[in-house]
């Protein structure tokens, strides 16, 4: 078994090639429009683009000026426009407006639209309707995968969450299957695949179909990634809704929210309060940052000690230069100073970040909030937590936080008691605006915030009823059942999997014993626990009850050919795919598990998420 004896986790594969592939394809596409051109970029493609290309590369390929796609071009600009966009109808209309405006004024230009990661027919239809289809050429830039870090790959598709889970739109599944195909061809073949969730299953099947169609050539190659685990976000909303307390999660909750509409591609905006100057800095936080890489997975309480130790060391290093002679000093300056300065800059940045986090959290009654959250997770003092939430709403503390707490209450309790639901909803609308009626409706459809139904027993008779009634009525009834099927069953699952650790005495957060440390020892993230259990059992045997409570759609497939080389390192590298987003707390928990068990997890997610981003996606905005 893979766990026998503790082994060091294998090194992650090199994902730099993904960047190179994307860059080369982009260059190729730009070359398809020879000559000088202006480039219009979708705002949320900007920072991913920054990660793989640079202005000078674009300039080399005759890009003249760069614009955001929603700005109107200056009248005097170039003869060729190139649009680098997501396949969205609104963007299409905008482009059509530009083209039509040119036509009206008798200006002729060449237009090229590059869709990333792929084109949808609906987009072409809009171009057609607007009468510009013949004026533009279209291309696809298959930029599916952006490596954010040595073990994190993001598809940078935050809209997947709403599109799939709220609207029930399956259009991105193809994209996911293609992403899997690409990873499989570069780092596979994956010999084992596990998964749970409807979307996970569909993506898996579609990917298999793609593999069959393309006559897999990768046989006989040594894989770098042996296993893949796909999971839908709706298997576990609880974890994503909890306040994050590992450093990287806190940083995400505190600083990244500001640029929420645009995915930030792994960079953070540190404001003036952090940088202790008058400007804010955009910082890339990843394994390259020597200070960050040592504290990112730590519980926040351990971070202070670490930083102060570091700064003492740093001071000592600098102090050495006292009493140096000229030669030593020269050595010091030429060899060590640069490194020390770098470290100094990083240290002061993270100390500033910690201070800023502390300031914000103390202002928000964070202590009380965490207490309420933990009670909800453990299922006691529900009344008390409910009135805490009520007061939170009444005081207009924060619309998103209030929603978050309500959703946590709902999921952990299998829905709110009707009386509470009505009263909290009314107060919420009064505090944060009546238009949130739409938000509540969306949350209900998602199963994130529901009212306990009177007829809980309906599920049992579903099959019998649907046989008796006409098709049309059956459709409607199935709808009703669907919402019932979304019952979270959190409490039962939590008991079954032991998600609330039994601990005698104090939980030592500095020496964590299990993944619960990412939530101060109060709760083991459900998503991660499922992955742990399935890997341990190499399948779903013994987890039947959990699967039933989660509403099924699990699978476990092993490729017989891959079995023989199961001793290889690749078998200990697992691609964990989160469909609908993954939080830094989950990443930290699985990194911890990996260290314990000698696994290496590679994270593939539609986007990095957190509670705020998830809930913001549920709010209706004006068109």
């Amino acid at each position, binding site marked *: 078994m893979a766990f026998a004896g503790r082994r060091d986790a294998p090194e992650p594969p090199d994902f730099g090639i993904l960047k190179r592939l994307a860059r080369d394809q982009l260059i190729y596409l730009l070359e398809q429009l020879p000559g000088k051109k202006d480039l219009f970029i979708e705002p949320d493609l900007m920072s991913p683009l920054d990660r793989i*290309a*640079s202005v000078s590369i674009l300039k080399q390929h005759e890009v003249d000026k760069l614009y955001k796609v929603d700005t109107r071009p200056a009248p005097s600009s170039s003869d060729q426009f190139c649009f680098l966009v997501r396949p969205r109808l609104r963007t299409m209309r905008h482009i059509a407006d530009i083209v039509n405006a040119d036509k009206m004024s008798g200006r002729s230009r060449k237009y090229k639209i590059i869709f990333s990661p792929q084109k949808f027919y609906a987009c072409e239809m809009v171009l057609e309707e607007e009468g510009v289809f013949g004026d533009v050429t279209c291309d696809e830039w298959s930029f599916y995968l952006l490596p954010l870090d040595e073990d994190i790959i993001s598809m940078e598709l935050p809209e997947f969450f709403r599109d799939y889970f709220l609207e029930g739109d*399956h259009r991105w599944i193809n994209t996911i299957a293609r992403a899997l195909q690409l990873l499989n061809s570069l780092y596979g073949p994956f010999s084992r695949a596990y998964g749970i969730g409807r979307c996970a299953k569909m993506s898996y099947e579609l990917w298999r179909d793609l593999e069959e169609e393309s006559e897999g050539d990768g046989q006989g190659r040594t894989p770098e990634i042996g296993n893949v685990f796909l999971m839908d976000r709706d298997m576990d909303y609880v974890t994503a809704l909890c306040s994050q307390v590992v450093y990287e999660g806190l940083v995400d909750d505190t600083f990244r929210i500001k640029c929420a509409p645009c995915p930030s591609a792994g960079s953070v905006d540190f404001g003036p309060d952090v940088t202790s100057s008058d400007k804010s800095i955009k910082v890339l936080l990843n394994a390259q940052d020597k200070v960050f890489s040592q504290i990112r997975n730590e519980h926040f309480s351990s971070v202070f000690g670490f930083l102060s130790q570091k700064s003492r060391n740093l001071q000592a290093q600098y102090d050495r230069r006292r009493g140096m002679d000229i030669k030593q000093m020269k050595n010091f300056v030429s060899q060590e100073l640069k490194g020390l300065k770098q470290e100094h800059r990083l240290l002061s940045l993270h*100390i500033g970040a910690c201070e800023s986090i502390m300031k914000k959290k103390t202002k928000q009654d964070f*202590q009380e909030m965490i207490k309420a959250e933990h009670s909800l997770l453990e*299922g006691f003092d529900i009344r008390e937590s409910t009135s805490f939430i009520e007061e939170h709403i009444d005081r207009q503390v924060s619309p998103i936080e209030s929603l978050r707490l309500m959703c946590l209450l709902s999921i952990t309790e299998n829905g709110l008691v009707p009386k509470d639901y009505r009263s909290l909803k009314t107060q919420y609308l*009064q505090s944060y605006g009546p238009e949130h009626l739409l938000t509540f409706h969306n949350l209900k459809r998602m199963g994130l915030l529901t009212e306990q139904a009177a007829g809980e027993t309906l599920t049992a008779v579903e099959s019998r009823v649907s046989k008796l009634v006409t098709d049309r009525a059956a*459709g409607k009834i*199935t709808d009703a059942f669907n919402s019932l099927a979304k019952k979270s069953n959190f409490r039962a699952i939590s008991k079954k999997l032991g998600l609330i650790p039994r601990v005698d005495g104090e939980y030592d957060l500095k020496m964590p014993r299990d993944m619960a440390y990412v939530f101060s020892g109060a709760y083991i993230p459900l998503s991660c626990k499922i992955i742990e259990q399935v890997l341990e059992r190499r399948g779903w045997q013994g987890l039947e009850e959990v699967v039933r409570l989660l509403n099924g759609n699990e699978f476990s497939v092993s490729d017989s050919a891959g079995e023989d080389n199961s001793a290889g390192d690749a078998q200990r590298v697992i691609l964990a795919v989160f469909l609908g987003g993954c939080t830094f707390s989950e990443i930290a928990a699985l990194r911890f598990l990996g260290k314990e068990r000698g696994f290496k997890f590679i994270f593939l997610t539609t986007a990095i998420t957190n509670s705020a981003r998830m809930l913001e996606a549920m709010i209706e905005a004006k*068109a």
Partner: protein
Amino acid sequence: MSRARADEEEYWHSSKFRAFTFDDEDDELSQLKESKRAVNSLRDIVDDDDDDDLERVSWSGEPVGSISWSIKETASSSNSSLEGRDSSLQKGSSSYAALPKQVSSYSLSSLFKGRNKLPSFQSLSDALSDTGVKNYAPELRRPKAEYKDYSRDWSPRDTVRRMQRGKVLIFLKRTLRREILFRELEVRQVALCHLIHFLKESGEQKMLLDLLRFLDRTEEVALSQYREHLNIQDVEKRREFLKGCIGLPFSAEDTSHIQDHYTLLERQIIIEANDRRLEAAGQSEIFQKYPRKASILNMPLVTTLFYSCFYHYTEAEGTFSSPANLKKTFKIPDKQYVLTALAARAKLRAWDDVDALFTTKNWLGYTKKKAPIGFHRVVEILQRNSAPVQVLQEYVRLVEDVETRLNLATKYKCHDVVIETYRDLKDRIQLTAYKCKVERGSADEEKINSILNNMQIRWKN
């Protein structure tokens, strides 16, 4: 059995993790501050020739030379000349649905251009969208057959594959009569979701509503119509629109929310017009002293209540802008009302009003302080508005839980309360220890001494 049960209970009810405290006074924070000092002290050594290995960043924080940065540069250089034009264009195009649909501007040349350049994009949506086009491509006149193919047995998986790019759906949408399309989709949930989402995204509100009506999803019809108000900027128009929403088939509960939404906006329009006039006239003291920061239009109810408690606190219930009227009209719960009024009056430092908010008289004429929220909350709100110790003290004293009371009193230096609480607890040790927290020679110290010397108290330690 019972033992196991007890264990279980204990398991579920005991909180056994030490929560990390996000408290100011924590040791860990001082550790942090110390590290900061240490690091900062190094700054002067380090800062002399900075920038060499730092990324150069622009004023907005983006690294100079990055793509995001260059885009901002072009935007700011071209914006100035376009500002005027932009805003005028914005008006016209802000709501796409309002735009008249463009008359189809197919030209033969554009059609063939499209075909030639993109051989992959042929038959379906291109050719069949327009009857005229079929003549150019007679071989594509197979809608019926294709439709049959697609409509038979769509397994979820097939649906997914076919739906991915929306090709089939758009094809069906264009070729089938609505009723037939709707009927076919009704039994195919996934396809239905796709069409609904597509209609939402493309702003084809009319067809969306038709479809939802056909499916008998009345609540969604109502919500989807109500949603449109978000796109109406003009408040008068918005108000009119909301009025029309009241009759939509919402649930009883939601109907009352919609009604409230309408009433609220109606009131806000009245209050806004009135107050703007008052403010402009410059005769109202309160508006001069505290000029309004923003209009009250489209704000939530609680914000409106706060506003009304701030500017119109003393008005009689008969006026629309009075807090009492809002409270009555919208049936605002006591708790909500008190929290909001407290915050507003505390902000104005109107401590008498605060006092009156919590004072009740019983039938004998005695006054008593009562609050629908915990007094610790009252204290917190007062403290945030920097209430003087005398005011704060009074409410700290009313906090029921002894431990919380002591904590608050100590934190906010309400010495009297601390001293009295220790006296009541008969805790000599703590009281003696507290002596060092008060000023030497002050009345507080005297008070402590006199209590400690009081022979009548039977100290517990």
